[in-house]
């Protein structure tokens, strides 16, 4: 019989994740694992795990891993990459970690053109701590710390991270993707591969923002979550490339 699908060796074999049913973190992990294997860099990769839902990512990626404090993954990755310029260094961060507490670290890693790759998982909510409002939470979206829904007057508009990074010279590759459908998952993988290739080519900082679901804290089924992502997140957070190496403002 022909083999039609194999689990990637980029993830620790046989390891079950703690992610909730229907959460798309698993897909994003797989894509990163596959890319590391396909680029032949798994054995020289060092990943930095965040604080948040993917805090245990260090148990899942089948490469050397370093667990950072909340928001500081890009600074930790900077330290690693400066010591090991020939290695492949990446951070895997959620929207609370990257877009709230860690804005200084991620902006300045990009600004320095730090040759690291960031996988930024945006599900518009704090998942691990139980569904609090994130900087990326949509207007009208309910959260445990925005029980009546987010308002512009009180919390401002949701932060568009990729658009902001499009203005930073050191950010060589910035793309927003989604994992809500098979075609989009294929595009997401292509972007993640291009981001890591950008690092291998020494072009500068690279980041892929991945729109992701949180069925548990959104209070939706996995299928409805994918639908909600498409109907609510994608209009505000348009998919597409924001920067490629060689392009300048």
């Amino acid at each position, binding site marked *: 019989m022909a083999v039609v699908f194999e689990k990637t060796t980029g993830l620790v074999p046989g390891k079950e994740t703690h992610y909730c049913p229907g959460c798309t973190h698993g897909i994003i992990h797989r894509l990163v694992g596959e890319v590391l294997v396909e680029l032949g860099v*798994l054995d020289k990769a*060092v990943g930095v795990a965040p604080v948040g839902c993917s805090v245990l990512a260090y148990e899942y990626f089948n*490469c050397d891993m370093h667990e950072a*404090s909340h928001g500081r993954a890009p*600074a930790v990755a900077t330290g*690693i990459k400066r*010591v090991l310029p020939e290695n492949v260094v990446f951070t895997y961060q959620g929207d609370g970690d990257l877009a709230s507490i860690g804005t*200084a*670290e991620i*902006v300045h890693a990009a600004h320095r053109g730090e040759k690291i790759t960031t996988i930024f998982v945006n599900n518009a909510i704090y998942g691990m701590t139980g569904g609090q409002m994130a900087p990326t939470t949509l207007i009208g979206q309910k959260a445990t710390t925005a029980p009546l829904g987010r308002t512009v007057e009180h919390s401002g508009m949701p932060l568009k991270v990729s658009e902001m990074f499009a203005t930073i010279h050191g950010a060589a590759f910035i793309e927003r993707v989604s994992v809500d459908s098979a075609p989009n998952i294929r595009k997401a993988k292509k972007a993640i591969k291009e981001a890591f290739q950008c690092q291998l080519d020494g072009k500068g900082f690279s980041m892929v923002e991945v729109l992701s679901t949180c069925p548990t804290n959104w209070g939706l089924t996995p299928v409805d979550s994918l639908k909600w992502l498409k109907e609510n997140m994608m209009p505000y957070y348009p998919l597409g490339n924001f920067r490629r190496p060689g392009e300048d403002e």
Partner: protein
Amino acid sequence: MAKVLMKGNEAIGAAAINAGCKYFFGYPITPQNELPEYMSKEMPNNDGVFLQAESEVAAINMVYGAAGAGARVMTSSSSPGIALKQEGITYIAGAELPCVIVNIVRGGPGLGGIQPAQSDYNQVTRGGGNGDYKLLCYAPANLQEMVDLIQESFDAADYYRNPVMVVGDGMIGQMMEPIEFKKVESTRTLPEKNWATIGTGGTRKPNIINSLALDPQELEYHNHKLQRKYAEMKEKEVRFENYNMENAEVVIVAYGTTSRIAKNAIKALKEEGVNVGLIRPITLWPYPEKAFDEIPADCKSVLTVEMSEGQMIDDVRLSVNGKFPVDFYGRSGGMIPTPEAIADKVKEIIGGAK
């Protein structure tokens, strides 16, 4: 090697490079700026990397990453900056990584001032960050000792897999003294860094640098392991200097540059026929409790002198353990005690005891 005249902050940098430090992550704050400035100039000439971070928080987390990758790495700051670094320091201690942190202390609280102080004693000896952890903490009194302790700090950090802090007040950072850079052979057998995250190379299972343990029993075991390490430090790493202790009527306890001022007071008092001893802790943690065994039985007072409103005095009281009266003289905010003021305090104590 001939002696060279150097400013304290620059001498720290030179000593670190001599000790094999290859990475320095810093952030500007007075009165330690000459150290990152020196490193920015000298690191590239020594096959190393200097990077100015966007904040103290980022700098210590860069140290966390570099230490995890197996490098000899250093950062420096001054009091409010060290407060910001405490988050990273507790992670580094929890993950058991080696690094050296220099704190050139200035007056506080808050933004405080930029003049010398010793009001970080609690911040550096009581952890400062969350959790049960300790830093090996050296407090040199002159630049030669500072330079010698920098080499020792890197070795001790590697040996224990623990952050080491070197504490100097603003005077240590800013003063110039002649220094001899000696090639010191390490007295320790340093373990191989086979835990470092440098890529598996396809030859081993992944290494993980981490301070998270969600299972409470696992975390308690981890804490017990750390405590065993701290117990070993207490047994092996205590350093102090006892001076003029024989028949001392009063024993002063002072560290860093304050101890030098105290020595001047002791010499002046000797000429007046008053015999005063000095206990000078060189390690602030582990604290040199055994130094207090040498206090003469008829000593009238143990006088703590600090450039603070009284922080080390708690450890003095614990070490004295009720055997002698404990007195205090301190200046704060960047004010420096004079030998005369210390001598007057001694005379006041002796007078009061009569």
